[in-house]
């Protein structure tokens, strides 16, 4: 079994108009820029994108918005150092927004991957983000019911992969990626290095290959922050 793909385009080939796509990363940390740009080249429209943020500058998710590919953004914090792409689309009514508390977003994705359709969290109780939601008291405290979140496909970035798709991550770049890898029907990872089976200490594997459908080696991945500081625009 070898999950290696030779081209980024193969990882995004199955994405169709109207699909829901999870994209890893917290701001630029862990953002799979090369996979996102391959998706822009592929050109699907009407997508629902799940990410913590809603793009920064004119690359990555911001570039997807500028290309008119995203119908709905599901995120916790659609602001950034340079949020112009999302802000303009939102104010023009060209993009829908679902804002979810960050921890609830993470847990909804985890639940989606773990086969748990709903759970209760204290976050948002008594606030406008809980309006219309089921609440229940447990041990004297009120909680809000939240449903799982799943996707057709997830695009993530990791550090190393073996041929089975077992992954390690780099520093804080893992953030949402191990969760999204579980919650999507298909998950594709761009990785800095693909290594032989046995080259990763099994104790160090963060995402097990069962959650991964394809890996593409991107030896020197771009950092969103560095691209933005250089004024990059995609395409």
């Amino acid at each position, binding site marked *: 079994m070898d999950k290696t793909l030779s081209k980024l385009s193969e990882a995004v080939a199955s994405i169709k108009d109207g699909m829901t796509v999870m994209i890893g990363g917290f701001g630029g940390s*862990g953002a799979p820029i090369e996979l996102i740009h391959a998706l822009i080249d592929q050109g699907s429209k009407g997508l629902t994108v799940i990410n913590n943020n809603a793009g920064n500058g004119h690359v990555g998710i911001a570039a997807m918005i500028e290309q008119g590919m995203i119908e709905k953004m599901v995120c916790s914090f659609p602001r950034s150092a340079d949020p112009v792409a999302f802000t303009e689309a939102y104010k023009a009514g060209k993009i829908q927004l679902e804002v979810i508390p960050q921890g609830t977003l993470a847990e909804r994705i985890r639940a989606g991957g773990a086969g748990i359709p709903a759970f209760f969290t204290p976050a948002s109780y008594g*606030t406008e983000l809980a309006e219309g939601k089921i609440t229940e008291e447990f041990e004297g405290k009120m909680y809000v019911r939240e449903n799982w979140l799943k996707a057709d496909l997830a695009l993530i970035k990791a550090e190393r992969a073996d041929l089975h798709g077992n992954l390690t*991550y780099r520093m804080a770049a893992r953030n*949402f990626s191990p*969760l999204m890898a579980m919650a999507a029907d298909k998950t594709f990872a761009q990785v800095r290095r693909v290594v032989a089976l046995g080259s990763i200490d099994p104790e160090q594997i963060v995402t097990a290959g069962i959650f991964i459908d394809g890996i593409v080696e991107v030896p020197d991945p771009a950092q969103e922050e560095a691209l933005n500081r250089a004024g990059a625009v995609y395409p």
Partner: protein
Amino acid sequence: MIDVAGIKLSNAQIAWRAAQDLQDGSYVNLGIGFPELVAQFQPAGRHITYHTENGVLGFGKAPPEGEEDWDLINAGKKPITLKPGTAFFHHADSFAMIRGGHLDLAILGTYQVAENGDIANWSTGRGGVPAVGGAMDLVHGAKAIVVITDHITKKGEPKLVKRCSLPLTGVGCVTRVYTSLAVLDITPRGFVVREKLLALSLEDLQLVTGAELHLDGAIAPLVCPEV
């Protein structure tokens, strides 16, 4: 009426005062922005482990310009550094630390805080793009949720109020407030004054507070160095 602006503590002094209560061996989350200042005033000899929502525990200070690693950032998306003992974890684990009651303390900024412990710190309710981040998760779960804030807004309106008028972040969460004029606990009776600036009478403090102040024993002087 005393000129509050002339005597009030600076943000750095408020952060300094909050830092004096950091407990040795505790796990602490500092909210984005102003609360991050607290780490600068951590008293010598106490070991505090800081948590940041995107998945890092026990990180170090900001790196020098040019040495940033953009895979190593905090919840405010500012670069941080490793130090011996740093741990990484994914987002669901990070918020399990928050909601699961594993953090000892969260120090947050705010727009308003009410005498019943309600907090409003995520939206001014004036439209624009709504963005919540981890604010609504953070106000639950830490063993103590404290707020550091100017006592009044730039327009002179009280930030300590009977009930929040801005969109709530959470209900009944906050246990202590460090302001530019006083230190107050939030109790079942409401705001209890623990410390206040010596130059300020209790009557003056009440005039700039939007809820009734209560006493529980003597009020200690709030004294901060120039920092």
